[in-house]
């Protein structure tokens, strides 16, 4: 019985002898592994990037919305004020739950504010001071809404809204007036652009924020759309939902609420993107299959070209298993070499994609393990049949071969 080192040494020599063919066979594997690595890495990068958006805000953020009947969609029914969370409930929340470190109820409406008689299509949010804190908003100019602003007609513009105004020739928007529902709002601050995604309401960048009490003036009731809150690290998260349920039922017995936490969303996203990664990986696997068939072809050619060699080795005492191992190792080495080149190319492609799209670049350990594992597995799988064929050659006939 021949030792494993010996087989590997022999295999390397054979590969070197058939350089051109070896190279051609590698291309299939290189492309296959390369695309799998690139796809898997991109999948993981996208996931990490979107997770990062959550983490930047903090993973201890929750949002509370009115449940909408049996549907899983939150948000309440804006047309039915009796089915919305009210300001009273929101205000009482902080007192009842001291471990909610910051509570930011807000209202949201879409309107056509006017600036210099031109209509601006933008959302208007009624907010409190804590809204800026929870969403980690930073100001480019001026100040944010304060809780002392009461019913004043002040507005803070998101970065996108400020750009819109600038296009209409506002210049520095500070101190300018934007009309909304017939009332003039004095712009007291402009926000720096906020990262999108995560738990952050999408209305921030394109919208205008006004004091929450002022926003109630335009509604029949003092109802709010959503409450954002930050929970203290030592808060019991499992019982939070049921305690919140109880709290809101005190006010409206038939009320159901929806609580979403950053953690929960991250987990859901992770699950989704794992699926996505798997799917992409599966597509890449098809090219691997093609590559594997190419390797099988090359190995079959190698076996038929080296019948004489097989016969000689058998005459000198090689067992069938020695011959099989020899060709199997050759096939695995071939695929591994292709796999390593493919990994390098795939990581390179992922790097370029990350730079272009602004994703966080990293080398996926799972991708690398997958690449090495899959290419060896392909070597074994597609090498087995040719190797078996080689081992079963009749030594007498093989020796007679020219």
């Amino acid at each position, binding site marked *: 019985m021949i030792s494993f080192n010996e087989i590997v040494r022999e295999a390397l020599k*054979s590969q070197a*002898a058939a350089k051109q063919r070896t190279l051609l066979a590698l291309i299939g594997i290189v492309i296959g592994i390369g695309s799998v690595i690139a796809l898997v890495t991109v999948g993981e990068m996208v996931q990490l990037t979107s997770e990062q958006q959550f983490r930047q805000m903090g993973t201890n953020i929750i949002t509370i919305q009115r449940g909408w009947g049996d549907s899983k969609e939150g948000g309440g029914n804006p047309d039915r004020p009796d089915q919305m969370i009210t300001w009273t409930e929101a205000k009482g929340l902080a007192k009842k739950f001291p471990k909610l470190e910051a509570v930011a109820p807000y209202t949201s409406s879409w309107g056509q504010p006017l600036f210099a008689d031109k209509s601006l299509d933008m959302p208007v949010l009624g907010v409190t001071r804590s809204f800026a804190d929870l969403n980690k908003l930073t100001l480019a100019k001026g100040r944010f809404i304060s809780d002392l602003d009461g019913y004043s007609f002040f507005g803070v513009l998101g970065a996108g809204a400020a750009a819109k105004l600038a296009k209409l020739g506002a210049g520095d928007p500070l101190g300018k007036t934007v009309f909304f529902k017939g009332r003039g709002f004095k712009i007291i601050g402009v926000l720096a652009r906020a990262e999108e995604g995560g738990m952050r309401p999408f209305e921030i960048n394109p919208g205008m924020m006004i004091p929450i009490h002022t926003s109630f003036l335009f509604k029949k009731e003092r109802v709010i759309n959503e409450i954002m809150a930050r929970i203290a690290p030592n808060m019991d998260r499992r019982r939070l939902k049921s305690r919140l349920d109880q709290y809101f039922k005190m006010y409206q017995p038939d009320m159901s609420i929806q609580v979403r936490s950053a953690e929960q969303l991250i987990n859901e996203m992770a699950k989704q993107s794992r699926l996505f990664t798997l799917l992409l990986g599966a597509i890449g696997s098809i090219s691997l299959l093609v590559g594997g068939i190419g390797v099988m072809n090359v190995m079959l050619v190698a076996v038929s070209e080296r019948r004489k060699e097989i016969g*000689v*080795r058998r*005459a*000198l*005492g*090689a*067992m069938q298993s020695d011959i099989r191992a020899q060709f199997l190792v050759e096939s695995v080495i071939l695929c591994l070499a292709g796999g390593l080149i493919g990994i390098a190319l795939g990581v390179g492609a992922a790097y370029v994609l990350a730079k272009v799209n602004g994703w966080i670049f990293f080398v996926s350990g799972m991708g690398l393990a997958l690449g090495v594992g899959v290419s060896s597995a392909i070597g074994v799988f597609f090498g087995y049949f040719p190797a078996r064929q080689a081992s079963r050659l009749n*030594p007498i006939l093989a020796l007679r071969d020219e």
Partner: protein
Amino acid sequence: MALIELRGITKTYHIGDMSVEVLRGVDLTVESGELLAIMGESGGGKSTLMNIIGFLDSPSGGGYQFEGQDAGHLDDNELAHIRNQKIGFIFQQFNLLPRLNALENVMLPLVYRGVPPRQREKVAKQMLKQVGMADRMAHRPPELSGGQQQRVAIARALSGSPSLILADEPTGALDSKVSQEILDIFLELNRENKITTVMVTHDPKVGKQCRRTVRMADGHLLEV
């Protein structure tokens, strides 16, 4: 004790519905240390007999005793093992592996025997020296002449210190001067080292120099 004892060996090949009887009851005894030439026309069954003696093939009938052990019915692994341990093959076309250099070719039987590399190399170098190829060890077969290749092949056959050297037309591809040189190696190995040698040849000059000659014809073996 005889090294080889063949009793009524038959070999029949089946090709489709046809069956061809290549060996029709061969009796042969080869003592240890003998130098035997098997002569005869091509198609007479020489090669088949060689394959059976060399454990490349199994007989269809009859008895084969090798070193006093029944060797007629061995499975593929046992055949490979006994070839590796007991037989040294020499072929008309040398059959060296072209990618390996002379030294590596000579080491090959020891590779399959699991001999560690350093010891393998030592033995192989010694064998190459013995056949006068010490200065060509790093050459590959295509860089060697026919005679040189056959010397390397002899070294390879000897490297496993086999009980039996089986040479199939060892001088068939060489000119007469080189043929004689190669034959001299066989004669010397047999005389000095008492290596049992069975040689297939159709060259009467070769046959004449062997101490014992048998003739194969039509599946039967005749002493000459």
